[in-house]
């Protein structure tokens, strides 16, 4: 099936064109061309943008802005984004990472979207022409989103305060059983003062492990210290079932892998 592809130079024009029913935005193609190849007849037209700012990474101190068209390979190879390299490399194989974009990852349904899990733990801000939204709000409303995402921004975490883990059955590249990202701050005596933990594959899109986050505050990262957080890890989750793992299996192994992430 042929799709009409329209190319625009400005975000404003692309947003106007996206209002047409059946029109989807083309980033790297790993979601939308895949859907069209699979026979998704709801896709009848594609829009793409050549606006250069969408493809740039700007790092100023600890403030990072990544254009929506930046690929996973560009993030994984960026000298100042080393803390996020593991999460970027978790996406696909080399060819997919050369194509898949940050903007697209925000829309990837479970079991995909591992990088968005990392962005959720970092409390990123998602920008469109219309303004800025917290990633949590953006993810909750993404199905109705009709404006091109232009960039994501966040504060770069210190290397030792950010952790990321992806569990897959095939090594080195496989689809996620689950993924977990954690941004933790510790006081000088080792107690947790703030925690943001994001989970992938534990719902249809990345979600926060809010109960586990609360249970970590004031605790140390020891087996005893994290026990209440592990007990609360599954609160509010509704893991997907797919050929990789069942809902039951994902729920069973979540505390095990969260424990490994926290004790690493």
């Amino acid at each position, binding site marked *: 099936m*042929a799709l009409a592809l329209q190319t625009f130079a400005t975000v404003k024009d692309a947003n106007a064109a996206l209002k047409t029913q059946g029109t989807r935005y083309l980033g790297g193609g*790993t979601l939308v*061309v895949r859907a069209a*190849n699979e026979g998704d007849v709801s896709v009848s037209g594609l829009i793409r943008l050549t606006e250069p700012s969408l493809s740039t990474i700007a790092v100023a101190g600890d403030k990072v802005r990544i254009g929506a068209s930046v690929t996973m390979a560009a993030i994984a190879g960026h000298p100042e984004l080393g803390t996020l390299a593991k999460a970027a490399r978790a996406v696909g194989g080399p060819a997919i990472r050369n194509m898949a974009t940050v903007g697209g990852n925000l829309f990837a349904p479970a079991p995909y979207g591992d990088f968005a899990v990392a962005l959720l733990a970092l409390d990123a801000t998602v920008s469109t022409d219309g303004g800025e939204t917290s990633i949590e709000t953006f993810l909750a409303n993404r199905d109705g989103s009709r404006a091109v995402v232009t960039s994501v921004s966040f504060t770069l975490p210190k290397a030792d305060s950010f952790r990321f883990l992806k569990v897959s059955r095939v090594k080195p590249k496989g689809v996620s059983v689950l993924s977990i990202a954690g941004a933790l701050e510790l006081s000088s005596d080792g107690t947790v003062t703030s925690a943001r933990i994001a989970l992938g594959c534990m719902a249809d899109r990345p979600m926060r492990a809010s109960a586990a986050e609360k249970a970590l505050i004031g605790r140390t990262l020891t087996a005893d210290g994290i026990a209440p957080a592990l007990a609360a890890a599954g609160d509010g989750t509704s893991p997907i079932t797919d050929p990789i793992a069942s809902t039951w299996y994902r729920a069973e192994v979540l505390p095990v892998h969260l424990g490994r992430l926290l004790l690493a």
Partner: protein
Amino acid sequence: MAKVPVQFTLNGSEKAEFIDSGTTLLHALRDKIGDTSPKGGCHQGTCGACSVIIDGELRLSCLTLVETCNGAVISTTSGLSEAGVLHPLQRAFLDTFATQCGFCTPGMIMAAKVLLDHTPNPSRDEVIEALSGNICRCTGYEPIIQAVLTAARSNSQNAA
């Protein structure tokens, strides 16, 4: 549907075609241009059989729309041999029995070529990582890994 003009370099030759908007590069290469070395396996970005090199980067031609390749330099496995002499990677795949049914081979060779272009003497782990987006259902992968390592050694001997 209106045809759109596209122009790119394929294995060193200029190509100019009028294609239907929304055509994938895989479809254009195989059915319009006649380069059947990239294979259509899953059309989902999972198997890697359609891998080609676009402007020095490994890409999946089944998920790439050909209109986005205007002005690009594209390499496929069919352009590797020179004057009937196989490329060291092709030679190594034959010598180490790294190809059985052959369906994954052109994609594997493209993935390996990008690796060796950037990392002439890769470690075994680097080879495994480079091939991690390509699926083979025949060989069990070991002969393919050996083929890439063998090609890297033969390249470095030739360079010495």
